[in-house]
């Protein structure tokens, strides 16, 4: 039985995560709280885009229908995207952005660290490069979590609120996914359910030091990996895709 479709699907999941996260982060350009943060956030967005592109290309290649990274990014509909819902949440304030980055980059770190030993050379190579980048992203988010959590009363309130806002979307990250588990059993991918303890330990330590409380929220139903998204993804895609779709087949 060919596992090619599974590999294509898995690469697409990781690529979609990175692409949608990059898209949201890029909305911070010329809006960051300080010029140094415009540079920092743009850097992170570029790194994520740099992960998305080879992952999407690889997915298209393995799929074997001739779809390029741009075909996948610009010409799939809402129900075909397989990113985690946390990546598509609309930008709130800086506290929300940092909360989301903390959760997501910490997950990506644990995931890429293990994916480096994938028996699939392409995935392993992407992971080897990405793990260094997301270590930096995670550290950036942690440093800001500390400063906002343990800064002023207002920043503490906003940071806590930011965590509360994105926390319902945490559960989805670690839910069992048939694709990931099937491939993990063959040493090709990472089973996200295995990442929860290490992720939790890191986050707990950061929140503790930042004087922030571990949020208690009801988990959202999720479904991103199956193409079920929040209403926010549709809005995001409308903006991201519209120009390419206005000129189908054009070269840019």
């Amino acid at each position, binding site marked *: 039985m060919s596992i090619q479709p599974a590999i294509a699907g898995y690469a697409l999941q990781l690529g979609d995560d990175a692409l949608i996260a990059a898209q949201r982060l*890029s909305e911070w350009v010329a809006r960051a709280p300080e*010029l140094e943060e415009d540079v920092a956030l743009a850097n992170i967005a570029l790194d994520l*885009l740099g992960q998305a592109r080879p992952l999407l290309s690889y997915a298209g290649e393995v799929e074997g229908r001739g779809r390029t990274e741009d075909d996948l990014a610009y010409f799939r509909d809402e129900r075909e995207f397989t990113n985690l819902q946390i990546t598509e949440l609309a930008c709130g304030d*800086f506290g929300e952005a940092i909360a989301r980055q903390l959760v997501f980059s910490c997950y990506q770190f644990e995931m890429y660290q293990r994916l480096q030993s994938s028996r699939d050379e392409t995935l392993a190579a992407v992971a080897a490069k990405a793990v260094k980048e997301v270590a930096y992203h995670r550290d950036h988010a942690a440093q800001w979590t500390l400063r906002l959590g343990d800064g002023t009363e207002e920043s503490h309130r906003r940071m806590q609120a930011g965590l509360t806002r994105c926390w319902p979307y945490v559960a989805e990250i670690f839910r069992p996914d048939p694709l990931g588990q099937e491939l993990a059993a063959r040493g090709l991918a990472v089973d996200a359910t295995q990442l929860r303890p290490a992720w939790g330990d890191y986050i707990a330590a950061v929140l503790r030091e930042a004087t922030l409380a571990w949020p208690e929220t009801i988990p959202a139903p999720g479904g991103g990996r199956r193409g079920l998204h929040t209403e926010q993804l549709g809005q995001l895609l409308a903006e991201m895709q519209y*120009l390419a779709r206005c000129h189908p087949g054009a070269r840019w």
Partner: protein
Amino acid sequence: MESGLQAGFERLLAADQRIEPRDWMPEAYRATLIRQIAQHAHSEIIGMQPEGNWITRAPSLRRKAILIAKVQDEAGHGLYLYSACETLGVDRADLLELLHSGQQKYSSIFNYPTLTWADVGAIGWLVDGAAITNQVALCRCSYGPYARAMVRICKEESFHQRQGYELLSTLAQGTPAQRAMAQDAVDRWWWPSLMMFGPPDDASPHSAQSMAWRIKRHSNDELRQKFVDITVPQAAAAGLTLPDSQLRWNEERGHYDIGPIDWAEFKRVIKGGGPCNRQRMDRRVGAHEEGSWVREAAAAYAAKHRPDGARQGGVAA
């Protein structure tokens, strides 16, 4: 005593040596530099907006990445320039305050809107092209920190212009709709780009002094002419026309002649009558004000966590 210092200062200029932060300098030299460097920095920061406008809609992932990198570079350039300006004894917070209150300006070119994707290419090719023409000379300006910042900036800038030109060329060789988009953008950005060099020097009383101080190394008209001569063949190579019916090669002069520039429009836009003046400032001031709770938090955290309880330095009272 000051005449000795003035003589020393002039000797350095005459020898084309750099003035460094601890040198004596005429107050007017310092004031002129502060204004020029600060406004250059402000231009980079404001310049992030018209191009940043298209990041979320870039029509390919490669173009999206290039555009994010470019806009990030612009933030970086602004930071290099603020750094250089601070060596003259000003604080960046004060410079930003002057920008926000309108007392210091930014390059008026950024008061124009990026209406289409092709505008991103036009800015890279024409606006960055014009900036580069000016900037190469500034790498040799008399004030050390400014010259060094410009060297760093120039290294990164040439990639920007090439990418802009490539973007437009690709459109010009594309579908009829893409070709029309490219030509429309060029039609709208050509004249404002020429205005970036400023009015003819006979209308610019401070030019002579800036030249004597080696802050300015060429006249506005010289730089504008250089830009035109370089750019006209590039337009032809890309299959694009320039919106000037009087543009033609002058064999005698060895340069391109251009039609008259509408300096009334230039003045109007500088004074606030451009399409985007209000919007650019609102966005900049808005980001700054929305971010103040973040900046305060970081400062509060730093105060709580000083390793030995002593002030960690920086701007002392």
